[in-house]
């Protein structure tokens, strides 16, 4: 689990995965963990995978080729 957390972090999805062993007797801990995680996810914002629309290609990139200047 720690492994996956670290990998997701590397990928840019850090903090979105959490595992906690909670026994049935630990209701309070469950509430606390879920509340904290929910709050954390809210701060992180919506899942970027859902919103991913493909790469944004910047148009400022200079051409590395010597093309004809426009209008010349």
């Amino acid at each position, binding site marked *: 689990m*720690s492994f996956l957390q670290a990998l997701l972090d590397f990928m*840019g999805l850090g903090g979105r995965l959490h595992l906690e062993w909670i026994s049935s007797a630990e209701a309070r801990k469950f509430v606390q963990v879920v509340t904290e995680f929910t709050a954390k996810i809210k701060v992180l914002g919506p899942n970027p995978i859902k919103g991913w629309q493909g790469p944004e290609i910047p148009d400022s990139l200079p051409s590395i080729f010597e093309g004809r200047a426009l209008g010349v």
Partner: protein
Amino acid sequence: MNMMHEIVKEWLEQEKIDLFIGYKVVDGHPLPCFFTRENIDDVDNLVESKARYPLEKIAAKVYSTHPEMKIGILARDCNQRALNVLYVWNQLDPEKIETVGINCCPSPAREHADCSYLEREPSGPLKTLIGIENNLKPEQAEVYSQEERFKRWSYEFEKCIKCYGCRNICPVCFCKECSLEHSDLIKKGELPVEIPIFHLVRAVHMAGRCIDCGLCEDACPANIPLRLLYREVNQITARLFDYRAGTDSGQSPFSILGENVTLEPMSL
């Protein structure tokens, strides 16, 4: 006749091995080739060459059908690490393998780094702007913010054409049933591949296995920095489990649940 030829011939003749897997030049290209006792003069055509193929993967294939066969392999450090991993996963029997070692790759096992094979061309300006440069080290990739990292990796994964080349070339991929082809795990029939699941599933399966040979990235037609990704996987594995696939002996930490396993609840 060089020393390597002598050794291989001697091993074949003395029945130390039944088969030697090395390279032979065909039409100007070094290609993997089997050398056998029956055709012993062919050993003279055996070359070291700069070519790199997962020879041990071929050996594992031979072993699966001919477990009694003793196999010799031309092994660079990466081949050797891959062999070690295949031993750990019971895909090859170390008793059945003899290696002729040749130096080349930089590896955790040895200091020297005289392998020029993996020097990559520098990335183009657009890639350095929105993708991930293949030459980065994991630490260097960490300077980006989370959002930036996600964008960059997503760009790289977006390019994937699902050719499975990374898996097919991988010397330590041996499963008969591959999770990448599991329709419940990864969406089928569409390009781009499901981002980032496809590549993450593979990355997870590389944990405790990847020996950083870089063949996956060489094979990738989309130039995805897979090696960087799996290097990070290796670093995490080393950090969390103090395990380095291919150099540390012993079972992968990913197949061990702990020494004393009891699945009944332990009270107190």
